[in-house]
């Protein structure tokens, strides 16, 4: 982890309320793994940093997907090319695949698709099938990203693009045929709950990247506690920032 100064290269709206923010560092970045995130200084009246998953990265730049939902993200929407910003990165455990995980199912909901795009960068030698879901056709993003590394099934809640229905319900219809070795997922809590049920029923292991309010982002303040059920049945609090953000859907209590 390092606090690094970046220059904003571009900041564009992908949809009405989702930004793609590209940041270029003045130095070589530490090694980033899929599913890790950064903690971005917002500036102005906002003292707390904001955690964002990394959507794309190379040795000198990172691209983030930012859902504009409140005052802090509205300020981020005002970042202009050339602005200097600071961010701590890379943070968290990220997605880890075992050698036995050859066929990977990526299950993304809305902006939650963004961290899944980095998985094939860290693990290029696997087979990928992606199920991505959005509210409607206007909210669809990342179709090309996922299409670049494997079969992609697009779903919308209202059927205005791709298959109609919640992405987890669509996947449920197909999962027996696909027989993935593992499911990696990110999305809102109802979607993650549905994914947890699917994983429990099919016995396909699943790992999720969650979202929670954070304080320090480096593991010290214990603000981002999430309840995790251990093998002995004991429930303990883990830090989403450095113990997560990726947890097994079997152990995390959503």
């Amino acid at each position, binding site marked *: *982890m*390092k*606090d690094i100064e970046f220059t904003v290269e571009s900041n564009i709206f992908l949809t009405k309320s989702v930004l793609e923010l590209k940041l270029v560092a003045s130095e070589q970045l530490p090694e980033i793994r899929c599913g890790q995130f950064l903690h971005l*200084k917002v500036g102005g*009246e*906002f*003292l*707390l*940093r904001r955690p964002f998953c990394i959507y794309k990265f190379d040795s000198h730049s990172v691209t983030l997907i930012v859902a504009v939902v409140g005052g*802090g993200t509205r300020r981020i929407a005002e970042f202009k090319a050339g602005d200097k910003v600071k961010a*701590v990165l890379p943070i968290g455990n990220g997605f880890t695949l075992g050698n036995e995980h050859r066929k990977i199912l990526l299950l993304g909901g809305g902006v939650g698709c963004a961290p899944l795009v980095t998985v094939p960068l860290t693990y290029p030698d696997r087979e990928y099938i992606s199920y991505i879901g959005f509210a409607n056709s206007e909210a669809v993003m990342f179709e090309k990203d996922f299409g670049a590394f494997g079969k992609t099934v697009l779903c919308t809640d209202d059927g205005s693009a791709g298959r109609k229905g919640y992405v987890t319900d669509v996947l449920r219809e197909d999962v027996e045929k696909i027989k993935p070795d593992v499911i990696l997922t990110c999305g809102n809590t109802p979607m993650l709950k549905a994914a947890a049920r699917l994983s429990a029923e099919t016995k396909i292991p699943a790992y999720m990247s969650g979202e*929670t*309010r*954070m*304080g*320090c*982002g*480096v*593991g*010290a*303040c*214990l*603000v*981002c*506690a*999430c309840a995790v059920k251990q093998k002995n049945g004991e*429930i*303990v*609090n883990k830090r989403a920032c*450095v113990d997560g953000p990726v947890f097994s859907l079997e152990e995390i209590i959503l």
Partner: protein
Amino acid sequence: MSEEKNIDTSVEICGVKFRNPIITASGTFGFGKEYAEFYDINKLGGICTKGVTKERREGNPSPRIAETPMGMLNSVGLQNPGVDGFIREDVPFLEKLDCVVIANVAGRTEEDYCYAVEKISACKCVKMVELNISCPNVKAGGMAFGVLPESVEKITRAVKKHCAKPLMVKLSPNVANIADNARAAENGGADCLSLINTVGGMAINWRTRKPVLANVCGGLSGPAIKPIALKMVYETHKAVKIPIVGMGGITTADDIMEFMVAGAAAVQIGSANIFDPCAGINLVNELTNLMKRCNINNVRELTGTLSV
């Protein structure tokens, strides 16, 4: 002593020497490990650990944080590994440090406090114990001991007998008269005081009709509380003879100077660590630079120099 020629940033509190007056505040710095990845934490005057209790605690439900104008609310609720976990998992790291380690101790009952203080103050690496009787985020204990002057005096006196190191009592701002509570701690045998802990506060999402924090209320920290903290350090300095460690919303070297002028012998840096992982080291450097610019050779000379 700073490396800079003629600039002396060192302070001494109850016989304990600090390289500079900058101490990281309890609850914002873990047990030091996490920040050691960002900078050499031995450059700090000291670190104050997360509050440790007799038994391991899981703390409050999430969300535990809310951003508020120029500040933040937290309701972590003393999640910690317990005395034994602290000694097993954290003391080995703390033993290697060259800055002052202050262990913050909390409890539910007087017996819990005494038990934890006795065990923790016996650790060689712990140079001072900070008695947490001001945590607003736990139902039993914590602040219950810190509100009435009588109970402040009683718990201080009880704990003092079990404390092998200088005892710093951390005062709550959520009281009728800070000077009364400061005197009570002094009468109870406190060797020094630290103040202020967080100010009780609340954030509400009116659209959902819900509090933002799962624990409903929390403790406010950050620049928003600095004026409150300065007033309380000033009032406490007039009321007691023992040294004061001031805190509350410090984010700049000028803030440190203000607290020292108000009566603090040293300061603690809290929320600033959360806003910026390098806040501690940045403030150490800023303080030296500010002293140079203002021709202040010895930081100790500032304490209590407020002219009213």
